[in-house]
């Protein structure tokens, strides 16, 4: 008589494909997954609680650290939410630079995704190539904000500073070389038998289930749902740019891979359009209550110094009310729900984390699959634990 015993296996937190701090308790029947219980919370830093004790500007550096692969997307969601609360208008140049940086951030984040996803499945070359290309965007980050990862570049009302001389040349270099690199990745993976066998038909989740589980972003579009916040609820002037939203058909790991690759090509198009429309002008709103004064005033006049000091130490009052602002971050819908009681600190800030919701569907996606395929499913969700634990 066959022995039908279920075996419980711990995967992670140190397993390379669980990206550091995710532990999955898997119940196995042979090699078939019966049940997965994700255990998270190894990083919990209480960003939401901390933000209740800091002024609105002081919270921006915290948002960098939510998704350390896409800091500027997080900044963007946060500053947009605060600007909505305040009801202030942002100069056009600041908006355009925000779009350029947000899309470059998407490229940067997707490059790490393709690198890690390919490495999880066993393709080493793509990993090294993608990190090499990411370095170009990292050095742009460094030149523009002084930091390679925790950029802290956007401000409530605009940007911390204008771009440097030669910014346009650097961005155009990225735009000109990247499509060729994407061709290389596709050449290495798309028709590779090992890749297709491991990804096609793996981790299937139907469109209805995906929406039900709150999956957003490329993972949702991979399931054939034609929905993108940049197009459907435009912010920062996204309505001005022409781009297509890719969708998948078979709802599997391979479709999500294709969707992200096409998205990277579309991002290049958006950045090119934004760069072409970039005009000189101010990068901070004309609102002395909220915005820091120009640096030359801070250094050279006592009034400017006091002005800067007051905003930095006391913050600015924000009208009473509550708003929710969602942005299309590389992993999905990143939302900030801020409740203001009229003071200089958020009364309650809630971050809607895309990876957290995507991870909630992992059992649905991997149940009944082989344990080896689980690795591909984790990779395809593009989870970032910093954001899951906040």
């Amino acid at each position, binding site marked *: 008589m066959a022995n039908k015993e279920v075996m419980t296996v711990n995967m992670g937190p140190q397993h390379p494909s669980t990206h550091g701090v995710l532990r999955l308790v898997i119940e196995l029947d042979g090699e078939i997954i019966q049940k997965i219980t994700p255990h998270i919370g190894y990083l919990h830093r209480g960003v939401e609680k901390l933000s209740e004790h800091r002024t609105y500007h002081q919270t921006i550096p915290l948002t960098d650290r939510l998704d350390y692969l896409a800091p500027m997307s997080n900044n963007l969601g946060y500053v947009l939410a605060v600007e909505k609360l305040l009801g202030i208008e942002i100069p056009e140049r600041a908006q355009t630079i925000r779009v350029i940086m947000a899309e470059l951030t998407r490229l940067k984040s997707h490059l790490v995704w393709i690198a890690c996803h390919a490495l999880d499945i066993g393709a080493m070359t793509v990993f090294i190539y993608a990190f090499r290309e990411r370095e170009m965007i990292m050095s742009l980050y460094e030149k523009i904000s002084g930091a390679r990862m925790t950029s802290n570049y956007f401000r409530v009302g605009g940007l911390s500073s204008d771009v440097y001389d030669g910014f346009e040349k650097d961005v155009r270099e990225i735009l000109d070389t990247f499509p060729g690199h994407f061709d290389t990745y596709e050449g290495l993976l798309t028709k590779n038998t090992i890749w297709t066998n491991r990804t096609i038909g793996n981790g299937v989740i139907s469109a209805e289930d995906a929406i039900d589980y709150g999956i957003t972003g490329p993972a949702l579009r991979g399931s054939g749902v034609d929905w993108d916040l940049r197009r459907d609820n435009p912010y920062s002037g996204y309505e001005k740019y022409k781009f297509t939203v890719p969708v998948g058909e078979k709802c599997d790991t391979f479709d999500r891979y294709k969707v992200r690759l096409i998205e990277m090509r579309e991002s290049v198009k958006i950045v090119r359009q934004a760069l072409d429309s970039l005009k000189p002008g101010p990068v901070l709103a004309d609102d002395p209550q909220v915005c820091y004064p120009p640096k030359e005033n801070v250094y050279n006049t006592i009034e400017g110094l006091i002005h800067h000091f007051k905003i930095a130490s006391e913050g600015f009052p924000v009208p009473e009310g509550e708003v929710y602002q969602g942005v299309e971050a590389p992993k999905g819908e990143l939302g900030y729900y801020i409740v203001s009681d009229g003071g200089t600190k958020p009364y309650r800030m809630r971050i*809607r984390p895309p990876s957290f919701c995507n991870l909630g569907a992992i059992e649905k996606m991997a149940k009944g699959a082989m344990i080896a395929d689980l690795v591909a499913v984790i990779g395809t969700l593009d989870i970032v634990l910093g954001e899951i634990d906040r």
Partner: protein
Amino acid sequence: MAENNRAVIKLKEKFAGSVLDVKEFRGEVTVTVTRESILEVCSFLKDSLRYNLCTDVTAVDYLGKQDTRFMAVYNLYSIPNKDRLRVKAPVPENDCTIDSVSGIWKSAIFLEREVYDLMGITFTNHPDLRRILMTDDWVGHPLRKDYPLQGPDREPYKGRLS
């Protein structure tokens, strides 16, 4: 403006006794309903008005600011209609429970676990209500306003005494 919202008209028609408040701020509509009616309201919103994506479930602690201490907040989105709606329900401190909407949207399974963990609101009929970010034996709910910022047994630094 909020009175003209499609969902608000329907909700007022159908759940006249349950709608406590309707507000619009910066173009966003918020409907406050009673705690007892949250399941009916949410299933109506999903089935009849196609709010198929439950973007977020969270809570706000109004300690000392409002009579009912907690407010459960549901941020909903309708992918077919590209339209947002926020539903809120007050939850009192002495009976800190509310019905779970995880039977309507599965995304609420994870999101409600987080609210339970960090705010201490119990969701009745939730299939798997356990702590999610803190350890199982953790005492207290960190996002409550009476929970100290630096953790239990540590007073915040107040500066020099002299």
